[in-house]
Every structure is written in structure tokens, then in C-alpha cells.
């Protein structure tokens, strides 16, 4: 790996190597720029390091404590926050649906929420590129959204028990389903093996099949000359009198403080750590929007026992999808949701059972003996931006001596109505499939929107390209920039925007405007 001498400024300094940082690292290095990336976590060797054991995989999750407040306090850690080279893609389920055009026009179409300052047509070529690099396996043609110029590069992965059960129940109700698009190749792809159906995507893929950033964008970036500094945690963003970023101070793997000068900074640390760094350093705060409008997808799950043996630990966890509920007819809420069949591992299931149903003692044990008969469905649904949902810095210090983020989140009326609609439908699907003892688990997924993009510097932190309005050489590329949550999982869109941000940056550099 190329190493850049300490005293020299690099063209591009990247903080965070997940879905937001890794694609642009590859693009910028590929264009010949000098690129250094700081990653708070370490680089893993999946075959040697990753156990097929939930508890052993805890090092993949961001475990510096966050404080969760509000009426619906969001769980962090394993729920939504990764660390390591690859970031949260190390633990994402590889579920990679595209947004639909109306996802970007929620306000225009419904009067609530926010529009994106982008058109779908501007994202589409990037979706194609990301799907090709990741090796997304999915149905062709895809039943929902606008017709596509290119289908998925690989055919769908085989369905597991939960997928078959949801398919059965949905068919009885006349709801269309299809194999879901998953970033796990159904055949060997780009030097990676085919998915082995170990179903452990959410705690690290040990085979290298899953399209996480560490086996896709990062090797490309390194081959093109990027430098990766692992176990380096950014602490200070320094700006000069000209209001531009001069460089970033960070603590290295030995605990020493170092400083890297840069011509441009790409902040890709996710919707908790990105605003946290900006707030700590007083950077890009003029809009008052940093940390504001925190969103999390409505993600209720309905679990049930079936007479058949499901053995829910096998197969790609999100095997089946329906987007018939993207904009449900007659809905009393704005936006919509997708439905996803889900497998689950025992520790995660037992923990949710304890929290969600309050079972303990012999009652819990008896229920858990039925684990091999369990299947789930979840939704991934819209969450509107609310002024009262935000991230701030608390006065408690974490293990690194930094102020712990406190996130206030309370679901609003739209989220409640959407969830009620979805819960009724999920229970109906499960009932039609033969479910026994269905139970609902309310949860919220992903961290979104805390450095949002827009056209107005008074209402947004970055512009349509991800460039900060008040700091011309600061670019943000992660889930923080989303002005609306979308009714789909964010990873594909984050990666597509990352490539687009890199291309727009290169364009400004060519114009002498960087």
C-alpha cells in the first residue's frame, strides 16, 4: 500500500470506509488523486477472523456509548452501527433495493416530508454501476419501479423457509412478491465466491461473498494507490481563516495524535458520527441543520411459529420482497413501505423476544425450543423528518474522552399510521401462511438525515452534490445527507451517491472550483 508522507497535504482525505466513503475512495484514487482514508476500526481477514457466532462478532459494531432518548428511543450498536474497514456494510444484510422516482418527490406528491434536490434519472446510472460492482443477485425484469435499461447482473439467490412462507401467505392475499435484490452473488463474481447460504450477513461474511465495501470498493481503491489508515479515529477538523478545511487531527492505532493536511475532506462517518464531528468542531453549522431531523425507518417485525421446520439460520436472510405497498391505495399516511421475509440468529431472536414480549424463565425457554419453527416478516418504511428528532452532544464522556451523542427520536403520526397498516398486513400474510402465535416487535432501522442535502443553505447542510454550503472543500457522503428516508433500505443509494459525489468533485476540480 502506498503511504503518503506525513507533512504533505493529500488531495482527498476520507473519514470512514463504509458505504459512503469506500466508493468515492475508489473513484478518486482511480482518477489519479492522492487519497488517504481514516478508519476508526481495523481491517479484518474474514476467513481467519470471522466466527459464525453472534457474540464473537461484537467487534464489528460501534460500541462507544450513545444515549438514546425520546418517546421511541432507537437502539444503536448491533442494530445499526458498524466499525472497521467496510463500516456498516460489514454487518448489513446485503439487501439492496433501489429507491423509486417518487421516493425523491415526497413533498411535491404528498405535501409532507422533503423533496430531494436530485432526479431519479441522475441516480440511475450509478445504481447500475454499484449493482455491477457488488454483484447484486435479483429478478429480471424487476416487478416494481420504472423499466430498467440493465437488469441485475446475477439471477436471484435461492429462497429459504421464511421466503417460501411469506410467498405462500402473500399469494393467498393476492400480493405480488419476488426474490429480493441482495448484494451476494448467486454465482462466483469478480473474484468472489458465490454465497454459501450461511445466513450470517448481519454479523460478518466469512466467505467474502457478500458485497461489503471491504471486498469490493476498498481493494479497488488500494490498487489505485489510496492509503488506508486503520484504527485511526478523527478528533479535530481544522479550518483556516479562509473558511476551508486545512486538515484533520486524529488518534492513531498507538494512541498518538497525528495531523493530516488535505485539499479536500470527505466526511463519511454515518448519520451519528458525521454530525458529531461537525458539532464538536463547530464546522458547517451555519444552517442550524447539523444533527437535526434525525430519521429512522419504521421497521416493525412480525414473528410466528409454523408447523414446518424453518431452521431460520440458513439462506440469505432477506430472501423475498414485495413493493406492492410502496404507495398503498387508500392509505391514511404519506409514503409507504416494502415487505421483507427474514431469517434470524438465536441470540438476536432471544434478545428481541425478551425485550418485545417480556418472556423469561421457563416460558422463554419453551418458546426458544420452537426457534427452528420461527419465521419473520419486516417492513422498511418511510419516516418523516420531525424537528423534535435530533442528535446533540451530551455532557457525558465516552471511553475516548469525547462527549457522547444523545439522539432524541419519537415516531410521529405518519409513522404510527404506516406501522398500523403494515402490522395488519403482515399478520394477515402470516395467518394465510399458517402462522401460530404471531407477535409484533416494534423497531426502527438505520440512522438518517442529520446533515441533509438541499438547495437552500438556510435549510440544508450540503448541496445536491454533497458539498457543504459553508465550507467549500468539505463534502459529506453517507446516510446523513438524505433529506427524506426513502421507503427502501439505504445502502445502495448511499453507494450510488458516493460515486456521484466523487464525479461531481472531480468535475469541480477540473473547473478549478474545488
Amino acid at each position, binding site marked *: 500500500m502506498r503511504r503518503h508522507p506525513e507533512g504533505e497535504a493529500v488531495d482527498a482525505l476520507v473519514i470512514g470506509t463504509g458505504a459512503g466513503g469506500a466508493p468515492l475512495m475508489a473513484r478518486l484514487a482511480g482518477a489519479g488523486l492522492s487519497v488517504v482514508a481514516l478508519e476508526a476500526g481495523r481491517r479484518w481477514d474474514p476467513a481467519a477472523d470471522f466466527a459464525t457466532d453472534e457474540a464473537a462478532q461484537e467487534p464489528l459494531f460501534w460500541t462507544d456509548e450513545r444515549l438514546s432518548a425520546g418517546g421511541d*428511543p432507537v437502539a444503536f450498536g448491533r442494530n445499526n452501527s458498524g466499525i472497521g474497514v467496510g463500516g456498516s456494510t460489514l454487518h448489513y444484510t446485503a439487501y439492496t433495493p433501489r429507491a423509486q422516482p417518487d421516493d425523491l418527490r415526497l413533498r411535491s406528491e404528498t405535501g409532507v416530508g422533503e423533496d430531494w434536490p436530485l432526479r431519479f434519472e441522475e441516480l440511475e446510472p450509478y445504481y447500475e454501476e454499484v449493482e455491477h460492482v457488488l454483484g447484486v443477485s435479483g429478478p429480471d425484469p424487476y416487478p416494481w419501479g420504472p423499466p430498467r435499461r440493465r437488469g441485475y447482473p446475477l439471477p436471484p439467490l435461492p429462497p429459504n423457509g421464511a421466503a417460501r412462507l411469506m410467498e405462500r401467505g402473500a399469494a393467498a392475499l393476492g400480493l405480488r412478491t419476488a426474490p429480493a435484490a441482495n448484494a451476494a452473488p448467486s454465482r462466483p463474481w469478480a473474484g468472489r465466491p458465490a454465497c454459501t447460504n450461511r445466513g450470517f450477513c448481519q454479523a460478518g461474511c466469512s466467505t467474502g461473498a457478500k458485497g461489503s465495501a471491504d471486498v469490493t470498493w476498498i481493494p479497488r481503491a488500494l490498487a489505485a494507490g489510496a492509503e488506508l489508515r486503520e484504527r485511526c479515529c478523527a478528533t479535530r477538523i481544522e479550518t483556516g481563516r479562509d473558511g476551508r478545511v486545512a486538515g484533520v487531527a486524529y488518534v492513531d492505532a498507538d494512541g498518538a495524535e497525528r495531523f493530516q493536511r488535505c485539499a479536500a475532506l470527505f466526511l463519511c462517518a454515518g448519520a451519528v458520527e458525521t454530525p458529531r464531528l461537525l458539532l464538536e468542531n463547530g464546522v458547517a453549522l451555519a444552517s442550524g441543520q447539523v444533527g437535526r431531523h434525525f430519521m429512522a425507518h419504521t421497521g416493525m417485525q412480525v414473528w410466528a411459529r409454523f408447523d414446518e421446520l424453518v431452521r431460520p439460520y440458513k439462506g440469505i436472510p432477506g430472501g423475498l420482497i414485495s413493493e406492492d405497498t410502496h404507495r398503498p391505495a387508500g392509505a391514511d399516511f404519506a409514503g409507504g413501505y416494502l415487505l421483507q421475509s427474514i431469517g434470524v440468529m438465536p441470540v438476536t431472536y432471544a434478545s428481541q423476544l425478551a425485550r418485545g414480549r417480556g418472556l423469561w424463565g421457563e416460558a422463554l425457554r419453551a418458546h426458544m425450543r420452537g426457534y*427452528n419453527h420461527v419465521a419473520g416478516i419486516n417492513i422498511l418504511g418511510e419516516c418523516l423528518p420531525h424537528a423534535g428528532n435530533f442528535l446533540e452532544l451530551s455532557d457525558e464522556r465516552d471511553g475516548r474522552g469525547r462527549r457522547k451523542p444523545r439522539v432524541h427520536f419519537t415516531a410521529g403520526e405518519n409513522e404510527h399510521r404506516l406501522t398500523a397498516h403494515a402490522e395488519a398486513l403482515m399478520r394477515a400474510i402470516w395467518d394465510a401462511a399458517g402462522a401460530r402465535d404471531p407477535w409484533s416487535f416494534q423497531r426502527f432501522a438505520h440512522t438518517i438525515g442529520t446533515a441533509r442535502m438541499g438547495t437552500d443553505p438556510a435549510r440544508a447542510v450540503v448541496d445536491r452534490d454533497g458539498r457543504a454550503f459553508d465550507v467549500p472543500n468539505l463534502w459529506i457522503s453517507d446516510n446523513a445527507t438524505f433529506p427524506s428516508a426513502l421507503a427502501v433500505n439505504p445502502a445502495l443509494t448511499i453507494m450510488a451517491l458516493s460515486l456521484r459525489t466523487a464525479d461531481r468533485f472531480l468535475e469541480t476540480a477540473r473547473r478549478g472550483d474545488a
Partner: protein
Amino acid sequence: MTGIADGRNPRDARVSGEPPAPHWPAGTVAALLAGDAVTAPTRAALRARLAPAPPGPRHLGPAAFAVLAAACARLVPQDGRAVPVDVAGAFDRRLGTGAGDGWRYDALPPDAQAHARGLRGLDETARALRGAGFLETDDAGRDAVLAAVQAGDPPGAAWEGLPAALWFEELLAALVEIDYAHPSAQDEIGYAGFADRPGWTAIGLGEREDREPRPLGDGA
């Protein structure tokens, strides 16, 4: 609050009309760990949980630890297991490391304080409800105390400023996670997911590979 629960009934072992949960053959996990269907890192992780605990002082004081152990016997019972899981010991060790899972409810104090106070609270609630401390109360009494704390707003000064229902949820989730990470619990539920080295091909509904256990009473 979290979790929309479908009726919290901790003492109901099954919903009426539902078939009883299956039992699984003992020793499946041990056999798989001894074979070649498990990768080296997975084997190391699971065997570490079977090894004797590392020596060292307890984090919790003796009185608090005794209450914790008694609570664990009700919350995550180990009866009938060939190798019981020392959930209380593992929880105490974790408290000692200060390691967290990346978040806590803002309404709760930091973990170490919350658990010290909550365990004291179990004792105070027992005195208020049953006229004796948690350790002096019988199993039915302990269950009643735990249920009262789970329901929220139990009697006892320790609960002032410590939301009881939230604390209970946090404690229970942590204990359950320790329990089901252990080979004994995984054996009990017929879990074979850790034996993934050959990959899985029989992944469809009702499909099974030779190394996966069948429930007892399911035929040869």
C-alpha cells in the same frame, strides 16, 4: 417506550391451543464442534464459553452478586442442562470490563450504577411485598418481585430515578444474550447454524441436511 408487546405473560408457558414446543437431542453441539463442519474461529468462540471462567475478583459486591445469581435462576433457569451456563458470572465479568453494546436508554444511569441500584431494588421490593429480602424469599416470591419490577413502579427507594421497567428490560436482554450464546442453550434449541463450513444447500422450507438435528419424537 420500546417494543409493542403482545401481552406480557411471563409465567404462561404456551398460548392455549398451540402445540407444545419440541425437544431436541442432547449433545448435537458437542458432536458438531468435534467434527469438521465448523470453522476454526467458530470452534474457538464456542469452546471458550465451555472453558472455566478466568479467575479474578468480582465486580459486584457479594450481596449484589448473590441477588443477581438468585434472579438469574428465575430469569434464565438452567435446570436439566448437563452443563449449566454461569450467566451471573458472565454478566458480572462484563460489568467489570465496562464494555457496552453501543447505547443505553438516556433515562437510565450508566450501566454499573444502574445495575447496582437495580439489584438493591430487587431486595427492597421483596421486603415491601413479601416482608423479607430477595434471598430469604421463596421462588414464588422471587417471581412476584421480578414481575412487579417488570411491570414498572414497584415499591422501594432504589427505584427513585431508576425506571424499573426499563432497567428490567436491559437486565433481561443482557442475561438472555449470554444464555443463548452458550452451547448448552444452542443444544437445547436444536441450533446448528454455527456448523456452516460446508455451506448450506438444503435451505428450503422443511429441508434438512444430515448434520442438522431433528426434534425428538420426529422419527428415525
